[in-house]
């Protein structure tokens, strides 16, 4: 949920972190190309801010993370990629209008436990699958 950012600590709001300088793929560490490689970023989802604490008992929020960054040819090992993604990135370079870029997406997700009241005031404990990004990759 995007809202005008208030002066709060990062773990209070569902806030994207400030983008900072990262190494580009063709960059040998001296910043010739200032583009950020596909990787996992911090994102804390606050159930309080979503207004869900009317029924959610625990947790009050959780670290969900998200994937962002460039998937640029050649896709090397740190991009946790596949042969297909490598071919798509190559074809994208040749026909950018037709074949889209390779996307930076979650490749490994994990569950969280959620304790909440249902409509009948029964208390429910559910293992919600695929809620936390563990790893990102180009696909």
């Amino acid at each position, binding site marked *: 949920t995007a809202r005008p950012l208030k002066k709060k600590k990062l773990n209070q709001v569902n806030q994207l972190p400030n983008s900072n300088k990262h190494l580009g793929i063709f960059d040998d560490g001296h910043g010739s190309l200032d583009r950020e490689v596909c990787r996992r970023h911090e994102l804390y989802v606050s159930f309080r801010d979503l207004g869900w604490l009317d029924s959610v008992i625990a947790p009050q929020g959780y670290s969900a993370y998200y994937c962002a960054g460039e998937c640029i040819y050649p896709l090397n090992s740190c991009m946790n990629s596949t042969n297909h993604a490598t071919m798509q990135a190559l074809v994208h370079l040749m026909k950018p209008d*037709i074949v889209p870029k390779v996307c930076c997406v979650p490749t490994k997700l994990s569950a969280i436990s959620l304790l909440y009241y249902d409509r009948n005031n029964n208390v429910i*404990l559910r293992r919600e699958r695929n809620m936390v990004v563990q790893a990102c990759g180009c696909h």
Partner: protein
Amino acid sequence: SSHLPRSPHVFPQHRLGVREPRDMQREIREVLGLPGRPRSRAPLATAQQPASAPLFMLNLYHAMTDDSGNGPPQPHLHRADLIMSFVNIVEHDRTLGYQEPHWKEFHFDLTQIPAGEAVTAAEFRIYKEPSTHPPNTTLHISMFEVVQERSNRESDLFFLDLQTLRSGDEGWLVLDITAASDRWLLNHNKDLGLRLYVETEDGHSLDPGLAGLLGQTAPRSRQPFMVGFFKASQSPVRAPR
């Protein structure tokens, strides 16, 4: 591939209208299984007293999220991905003034159990205080499912569990009611009725209340409740949007 139609691979970005976040949130809450409309909390005075079911479920939550494995063992926990606690909506007693046997009956509304869930275990939990009726005696506590109520004769019952303890014992008594789950999954809309009997060593029927078993009139932290442990079926089909 050069003659392929131009495919716009950048989706148009648009800011959400006023109503859209609320609709999106309602949809997301449904997908996560969270109730759509805000739950109406019990009156403040009662809500502040900790109730037995939430206390028990909070312990399960901590056990589920504790990776160190130091907490007390929770036998059914790690096989389940959904655990539901139910507070009983109706309680009947057939005690003093009636001919024997005496019993206590609890009814539960199971309509909130989502479809496609397999029961891995189910328990009925009731708190027992020390009793002196009669003192220092062995008590047999048996639990039945009320399969079919009869107006003109005794209801059809299905035996679930039997526990033996001493009259002076105190603490939570856990009765296994997993065997009742076959029927309740077939018919969510019918309340689940559980009937509890207490007998002494010589087969004399005893009022469960006199034996120290607390019902709905007990303090909130000691009221009886039921817990179901569920495993989602392997391929949960999501309703089309």
